[in-house]
């Protein structure tokens, strides 16, 4: 696309410490409008912590973070208005219907009442859930829930969409459909996509740029081709393994969350 690059997400010297543990250790990156950016790394590398800081759920220990021109810590409300997110863990109200979940989201994001119904319908049709709009979410399959979460994240027309391991547990059909749609959002609407995944083929196929984080630091970034060149390997997987090593990592949180959650770990260790 021949347009002037506009930085939509920027992080500068981002640090997050939990007590003595440094989960994110001074990372910086810039992501342009309409770019699809993949954030890769082993469990516990600092991915989730970074996403939590980007999405205002955690306050950085130091560093600067801007979303669509808004300082994430100082202009929290405008920053929040600028992004949609699909969380790693389920985040729907199961005892509400699909429609009610969407409607509540639209209200929380200040969409005028007159526009709500149309907007919700449009998105629910898009993810092919309109026929199930009055069903309780608890009757939905994992794939349907994911689709609904994606639709929900788009209700307020965000400029940025965060997807934290969005395809975990989805079948191939749903995954393909989802990525197809996400690419359309980026290319046609100029939405910026920031996602994490453990499936490297997915990152290779979809992401225009990739950053690999390990031990809280970005160890490499660039296109797949650039990463391969840097590491003198042939595939993304090979270069990923070369950068992050072949050993598995201990997760501090052995509970239901995949991905390291330092806070929970700390809390648990304090309780015991």
């Amino acid at each position, binding site marked *: 696309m021949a347009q002037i690059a506009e930085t939509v997400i920027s992080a500068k010297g981002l640090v997050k410490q939990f007590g003595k543990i440094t989960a994110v250790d001074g990372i910086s990156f810039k992501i342009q409008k309409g770019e699809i950016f993949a954030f890769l790394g082993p469990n516990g590398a600092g991915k989730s912590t970074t996403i*939590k800081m980007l*999405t*205002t*759920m*955690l306050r950085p220990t130091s560093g600067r973070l801007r979303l669509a021109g808004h300082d994430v810590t100082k202009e*929290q*409300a*405008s920053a*929040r*208005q600028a992004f949609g*997110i699909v*969380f790693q*863990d*389920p*985040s*729907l*109200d*199961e*005892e*509400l219907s699909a429609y*009610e979940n969407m*409607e*509540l*989201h639209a*209200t*929380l*994001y*200040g969409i005028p*009442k007159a526009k709500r119904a149309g907007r919700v319908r449009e998105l629910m049709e898009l993810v092919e859930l309109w026929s199930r709009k009055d069903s*309780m979410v608890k009757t939905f399959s994992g794939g349907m829930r994911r689709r609904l979460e994606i639709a*929900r994240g788009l209700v307020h027309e965000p400029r940025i969409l965060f997807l934290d391991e969005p395809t975990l547990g989805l079948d191939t059909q749903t995954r393909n459909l989802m990525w197809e749609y996400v690419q359309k959002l980026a290319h046609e609407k100029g939405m910026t996509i920031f996602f994490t995944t453990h499936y490297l083929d997915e990152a290779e196929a979809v992401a225009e740029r990739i950053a690999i984080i390990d031990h809280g630091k970005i160890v490499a970034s660039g296109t797949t081709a650039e990463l391969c060149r840097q590491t003198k390997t042939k595939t993304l997987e090979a270069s990923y393994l070369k950068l992050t090593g072949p050993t598995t990592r201990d997760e501090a949180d052995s509970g239901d969350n995949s991905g390291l959650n330092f*806070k929970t770990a700390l*809390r648990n260790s304090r309780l015991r």
Partner: protein
Amino acid sequence: MDILYALWLRQIRRYFRNGSRLLGTLGQPLLLLLALGYGVGSIYKQAGAGDYLQFLVPGIITQTVLLSGVFWGVIVLMDKRFGFLSELLVAPVPRARILLGSALGGATISIMQGLIVFAIAFLLGFRPYDWLLVVPALGILIVVCLALACLGAGIASSVDDFQGFQGINNLLILPLFFLSSALYPLNDVPAALRIISTLNPVSYMVDALRFLLSNQTHFGLEKDLVVIAVTLLASVAFAVNRFNRIQM
């Protein structure tokens, strides 16, 4: 306003879709009304203390909203455990407003429960002293319910699992109820019990309702109102503080 309404509506919708929750919180007050109202009532009358049902019902209504209000708070814990809280916390809405909208829903649920117990008590023979005073009694009930919902939400925000919540509740709800003026007049109880009951804000909630519904009071309505107002402010402050500290 829109946002508060949406959050309120969410609570109400969930309440009406879950019949077991309704029955669960109504079972205990019903049992108490029947067992104590009839069982203890005759002895109470023989002792020359008057009609026990008239004395008891304001206490049981308070117990109902105490149980239902604090237990409503478990929704904060459920939202935390089952992920919906993430959705709420990244929304461009101040946390205090999210809490307030939800707590208003929780309070509304408690008020409905209280009114159901009132209706059942009426069928069992309870008669308000003056129907006009039922209106201010309802006003007090609303304030009490909001305070208790905030208390429940504050507790739920502070704990991480259901066992913890359960434990705190048992340590809190039962003493708050039994060591209050809900079941017995405070005039003739041992000094230790009287002191504890006098320090227990639930006693004042019961006392205010009892004054308006049955024309009996221990502390006097002015004192009751002051304690209830202070309790409301303290529980709102507690809930906002704890809710603000939640990290996902």
